[in-house]
Each structure stands twice: as C-alpha cells, then as structure tokens.
C-alpha cells in the first residue's frame, strides 16, 4: 500500500509499505478515504518531537471504511464508514473512565504523560498514521465513530481533531457570558477555538497571528477581531490597552512549540533546541490574561523544559488548563453542532491533494504557501 514516509527533518515522501495487520483482538483495519495534515504534524516534520523514527507514517486525522475487525470487536462492522479520533483510548483504564481519552494509560508504553496518538512518533506510542491507504486502528469499539448518514466526509475528517481541539480550548477557558477571549495563533485550531468561544457566550473574541491571509480568513470564518502582532510594539501591551488595561478574561495558546515572534525564544527553542521549542505564544498568553484569569493551552509542546514565566502565573493567580482534546467525550455534542450548522468544519479546507503528492503538500502547509489553511490528502483508492 502507499504511505507517507518520514526520512528526517523537512524530508517526507510517498512509498510502498506493507499492509497493516490485526495485531490485537480489539483492532480494526480501516481503508482511508481522507486524511489531513495537521499543524502539530509540523512539529514532527521539523524534527522537534523526540523519538520520531525514520520510516514513520504520520497522520492522526483520518476517516475511512472498516475493512477487517479483530475477534473481540463487537460494535464496529466491516463496511462501516468511520471517523477515527486522533487519541487511541482503551475505554477501561482509570483515565478513560474519567473521560480523559487523550490520557489513556493502555495505549502508549513509551511515555506516561501522553496517551497513544496515531502517527505521532514513538513518544506517542509508535503507531503508524493515516496518511496512507490503510491503517491499523486499535480499540476499535472505543474511538471510531460511525459517520452519521448524509454527513460530508470533509466535515467528518475535521471532527477527528480540529473541531474538538478548538472546542476544548474554549471549554477549558471556562468562558463566562460576555468574556473577552484572546487567541494566539490563527491556524485551523486557533480559528476553530475562536469560532467555539462564541458558543460559550464570549462577548469579544480576538485572534492574534502574523500571517495576513490567515487573519483575513479568521475574521470571516469565526466572526472575530483579527490582528497582526508585527504591527504591534508589544502584543501584551496591545491586549492590555484594548481591554481597558485589565487584560483578557481568557487567553488561549493555539500555537505550541513552533511559535515565531520572539528572537530569544526562536534561537533557544527552535535553533539551538535548548528548550522544547519556542514558548512565545504561552508567554504572551500568561502575560496578557487578567489577574485571576484563565490560560488554556492546546498548542503542542515537546516533553522537555520550556522557559515559561511561572512567577507571573503565581503572582497573577492564573488558572492554567491544558490537554490533548478528549475527542470521544465531545463528539456527540460536536456532531450536533455540525448538523445544525453552528460549526462548518469543511469551510476550513483549502487544499485537496492526492496522497502521492505528500512532499509538496507538507511544503505548502509548512511554508503557508498558496493561502493554505487546511490540507486534505486523498489516497488513489478513494479517488474513483
């Protein structure tokens, strides 16, 4: 089968790889019909995530058709059209019981801090991802969700990560009606977080980034204010000024380790790798939120140290909430929002690319070429 193949930082290609097999009685094999490239794939692409082995297949956002199921699979059937949450969760452990499906304790032997994730390095369990024709899906009765009849597969594929992560970013912000929410990062997740902030009753939603076309997109898609931090002397002062010198009620970091905008962070985090990526967005979030406010983090950071202004967290009495989205917990609510037109996931997709052109697709997304917001890869078998 065809699958994306990581060869080292900034080098990926398409190759023939062996077909995945049932390795556990609760496994299923899914034939992929669509997969996405995610902003967090760029952390892998840039070589920032430890234990990203050469030969890996990335891709944690995919939908497809069930081709085969293991002997202990009860609910899922061959032929089912499914969307597969990016977290691999057993449904039985203490953390799954608490609906923390992103923190399952039976899906990632290599690390205890994070659960298993499809195609996201050995630090997240060493699973092959969905940027391929076929993929092995463990715990098939837990994560995979049958796509409701009539739902566009382009909507479904964004329900595997982008919509739930954006939604949970807003949810973790504990937004109260009328609150001012500031979101750092106008990538797909940041834009979705802006959109979802309204569902929690935000009174003002502001998104801050440096890529003009993305700001323009965010303004239209999420009906929010959008500003370029390059036009500001200091984004923190800007937020203070625009909130009558109080600070935002809620700040969301939707950037993570690849943040631009601060030379010291770029050099220590992205060039010298003295910390786990640049923490610029997190700095801005902590320093822009008002005292007693809430900072919500969904940007991906590496497992090692970051230079974070923890003193300000203490002195300002900030609550920080952060996690990988618990996709399965949120799906029923989010499917309803999509079906009732409150969220339009596929409105974010700008590029549909044949899987074979994966190298170019990564370059376009990574360099923000051709006004790219979100890229969907389509395997040859799904293109008839």
């Amino acid at each position, binding site marked *: 089968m065809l699958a994306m193949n990581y060869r080292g930082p900034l080098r*990926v290609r398409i190759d023939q790889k062996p077909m995945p097999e049932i390795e556990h009685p*609760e496994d299923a094999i899914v034939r992929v019909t669509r997969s996405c490239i995610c902003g967090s794939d760029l952390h892998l692409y840039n070589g920032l995530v430890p234990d990203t082995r050469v030969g890996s297949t990335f891709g944690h956002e995919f939908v497809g058709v069930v081709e085969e199921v293991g002997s202990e699979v009860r609910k899922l059937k061959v032929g089912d059209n499914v969307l597969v949450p990016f977290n691999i969760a057993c449904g039985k452990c203490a953390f799954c019981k*608490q609906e923390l499906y992103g923190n399952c304790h039976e*899906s990632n032997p290599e690390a205890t801090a994070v659960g298993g994730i499809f195609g996201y390095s050995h630090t997240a369990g060493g699973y092959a991802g969905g940027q391929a024709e076929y993929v092995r899906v463990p715990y098939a009765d837990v994560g995979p969700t049958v796509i409701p009849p009539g739902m566009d597969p382009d909507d479904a594929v964004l329900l595997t990560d982008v919509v739930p992560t954006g939604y949970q970013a807003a949810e973790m912000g504990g937004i109260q009606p009328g609150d001012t929410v500031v979101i750092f990062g106008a990538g797909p997740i940041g834009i979705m977080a802006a959109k979802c902030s309204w569902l929690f009753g935000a009174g003002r939603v502001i998104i801050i980034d440096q890529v003009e076309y993305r700001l323009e997109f965010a303004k239209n898609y999420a009906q929010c204010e959008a500003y370029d931090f390059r036009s500001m002397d200091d984004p923190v002062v800007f937020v203070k000024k625009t909130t009558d010198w109080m600070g935002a009620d809620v700040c969301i970091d939707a950037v993570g380790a690849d943040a631009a905008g601060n030379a010291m962070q770029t050099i220590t985090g992205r060039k010298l790798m003295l910390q786990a990526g640049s923490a610029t967005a997190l700095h801005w979030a902590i320093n822009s939120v008002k005292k007693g406010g809430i900072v919500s983090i969904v940007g991906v950071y590496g497992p090692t140290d970051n230079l974070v202004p923890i003193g300000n967290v203490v002195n300002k009495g900030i609550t920080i909430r952060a996690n990988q989205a618990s996709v399965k917990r949120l799906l029923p609510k989010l499917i309803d929002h999509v079906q009732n037109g409150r969220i339009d996931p596929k409105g974010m997709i700008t590029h549909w690319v044949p899987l074979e052109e994966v190298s170019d697709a990564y370059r376009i997304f990574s*360099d923000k070429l051709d006004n790219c917001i979100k890229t969907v890869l389509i395997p040859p078998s799904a293109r008839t």
Partner: protein
Amino acid sequence: MKNLEKNYSHIKGWGIDADPKNDPTYPIKLRTDEAQKGYHWERPTQQPITTEILHSNERPNVTAVFGTPLPPKGLSGKIRRYAFQFSENSYGHWLPLLLADRVDEIEGVIDDLRQGHVPNFFAERGWKAQFKHNPKAIATKVAVGALLVTAVVAYLRRSK
C-alpha cells in the same frame, strides 16, 4: 445574558453551551470511581509482544496495545535503549532520543542507498511546490549559493 443574546443574535449558536455553574469545566474528577484508587482496572487483552518495545520506567509493564512498525535498530536503536533507562523526568531520557533521531536520519540515507534507492532530496523537501508558489525563496537560495561560489572562487584566485 438575555441582553447579550440579542446583541449576538447574528452568531449562530451563541451561548448555546454556556453554563456559569460549570467552572472549572474540565476535567471533572469522578471521585467515587474505584478505578481512581491505583493501577487496578480490568486491563484489555495484552497485545503479543513479538518485537522489541521500549517502555517508560515510570510504569511497570508494556501497555495493552502499542505500535510495532519501527522497532529500534542500528546505532540509533542502541542510543534509544540507553535513553529508556531514564525516566521522562530526566534529560538522560530526552536528549539521547533527540540525538538518536539525528543518527537515524543518516542511517536512513544509508539504508536507501543500500536498497539501490538514491533519495531525491529536492522532491522530498517539496521544492516543486515551493518553486510553484514561492519562486522568490528558491531564487534567493540559488542567488545566495551563486554568490558564495563566486566569493570562494575570487578568494582562491587572489590567494594564488
């Protein structure tokens, strides 16, 4: 809330998930759940361990499922095995893993060559797309390259 609703009536779904009582919203602890008390739950069936799986020393065992496609191998594999003696709390764990990734990259090129495949760096880096959508970046790279070569040639000529 009523007034606010009117102001935001142009945004479909505004306030639909607002619940002032629900703060902090998430995660919610299920304090009565027996499963919270320790590492005891009805574990899923263990996936047969047919290949080398490295596991964090912050847990007693291998998880019930895991990925198998890329077991550690070669020099990078040796470094990875070393790294897994240390906990996720330790530089001894993460820094060797990053080093192993760089070694793996070189081993990957050697593997390619051994299998008679000369890696096409330009294609793998997606330069075709860059050329199409951002020719200026390629032009700059080429120009900088040409300048460097010219400078080196000029320097070598002069030093003769």
